[in-house]
């Protein structure tokens, strides 16, 4: 346990000392809130949960695996593999730090929404929203783990992750309502991983209630999250592809 704590503290320090981690995970989401607020301030109730999930999605698919991929490319993982540290502890501490960063990111967006745009959020709403955000983060990070596993390099993983992210962002009811989509797409979207998170977080935050279809959403997320986590674990590599 002591080993795990020391390792986790080291992982946290490494992330917090990294300029691009700080910018993309903390500064950029606030910037996004300011931009949306300037353009469509009257829709910020609808937008804020969307911005939370949008950032959780890009964080899960791309940012959360960047440092792991860099460590793999620079042989840092190989050096860690040469110690008696079990792989599970390494991945566990890495995930823990990234979950913390993801939750902190969402908190900053909520704060911006409440303080700048006066979105109506209650304590009950928050208490319901956080578990939903967390579930989304975990599912997205697991999907990001698959992308890292199949990509030879960090650059490739970023490109693949961003492509998936942009595709999902526009169609998942985050920034554009679903009825703007063509009918055939509207039928598919609810089965993609981002849509259920948006519904769960939005109804929790704005109405302090569970979405009517919350069981379906949660089940779908669990399938995505657990399935992706199992695949990602199988794909995990200590070394870059030769």
């Amino acid at each position, binding site marked *: 346990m002591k080993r795990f704590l020391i*390792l986790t503290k080291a992982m946290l320090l490494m992330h917090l000392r990294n300029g691009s981690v700080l910018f993309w995970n903390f500064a950029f989401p606030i910037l996004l809130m300011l931009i949306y607020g300037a353009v469509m301030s009257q829709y910020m109730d609808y937008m804020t949960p969307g911005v939370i999930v949008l950032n959780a999605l890009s964080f899960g698919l791309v940012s959360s695996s960047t440092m792991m991929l860099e460590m793999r490319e620079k*042989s840092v993982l190989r050096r860690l593999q*040469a*110690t*008696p540290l079990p792989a599970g502890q390494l991945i566990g501490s890495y995930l823990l730090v990234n979950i913390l960063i993801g939750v902190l990111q969402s908190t900053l967006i909520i704060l911006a929404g409440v303080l700048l745009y006066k979105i109506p959020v209650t304590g009950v709403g928050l208490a319901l929203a956080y578990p939903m955000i967390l579930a989304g983060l975990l599912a997205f990070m697991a999907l990001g783990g698959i992308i890292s596993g199949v990509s030879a390099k960090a650059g490739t993983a970023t490109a693949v992750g961003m492509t998936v992210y942009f595709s999902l962002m526009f169609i998942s009811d985050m920034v554009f309502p679903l009825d703007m989509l063509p009918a055939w797409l509207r039928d598919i979207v609810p089965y993609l991983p981002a849509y259920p998170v948006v519904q769960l977080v939005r109804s929790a935050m704005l109405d302090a209630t569970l979405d009517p279809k919350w069981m379906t959403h949660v089940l779908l997320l669990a399938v995505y999250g657990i399935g992706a986590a199992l695949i990602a674990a199988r794909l995990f590599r200590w070394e870059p592809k030769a």
Partner: protein
Amino acid sequence: MSQPIIDAQNLTAAYGSVTALKGVSLTVEKGEIFGLLGPNGAGKTTLLACVEGLHKPKQGQVHVGGINVQADPAATKRQLGIQLQKTALLDDLTVTELVEVYAALYEVYLTADQINTLLERFDLVEKRNTLARRLSGGQQQRLALAVAIANDPQIVLLDEPTSALDPHARRAVWDNIRQLHDEGRTVVLTTHAMEEAEALCGRIAIIDRGQVVACDTPSALIASLQLNSMLKATVELPLDQVRTLPNVSNARYTGQHLEVETARPEVTLTALHELAARSGRSIRDVMLRQPNLEDVFLKLTGRVLSESN
């Protein structure tokens, strides 16, 4: 004789279709500095990786401290201090944090005093709060050594500990390695620099193309081949003519220098002068040197070590 601390038998290893080791056997005794000398790509790093439990050999077995590496990699790793070819540490941590973290990975928890003592011996105390990525090459290499022994291992495996270092930094690292030896630790290091192998190692295995071509003390390796003295001179003469001079067993050019292997240097030198005079050339910078590991490598492999890299 006591049991060897590292015992590799008949190791064959491959990366895909590329064979890296072809039936390598060697033993390392407790407390010695053992060198793996060979050009890049000879298989030195793969051999270390098999000992470290990082690469699974296709055939053969390695025992470290009596433990079968493949059967119990975790127990093997606990006994070892490791420095990989690329320093590859967690760059965004400070020197102190790195030493603390790497020791903790072995479940060794160092006090601030213990960390300080460790940094002192590697001349890193002033840099203790500096991020690893801001250190110079020599400092990073010393930090890699400090990290390698943070868990107080009895066996230390160093892959190219001084490559890419300037002569001053290299000597500092040599002193650190000798100190590890003085403390009774077993050190295995790889190098492609024969002067490093000669300066540090009690015994050497010469590795070429995945095989051990010779293994002994540096002096025994040199003596065993009954090599002649080497006469070195700066002069341009046709090699076929030089080779016909009395007592000359071989001749070659390394850069501008003519190197002549001879059983009787004084006779050969006179003959060389006469040949040069007849050809209208002058000889400069004449030097006589004893055969070294470079010559051993050449004799055994037919290639020049420094040019193979």
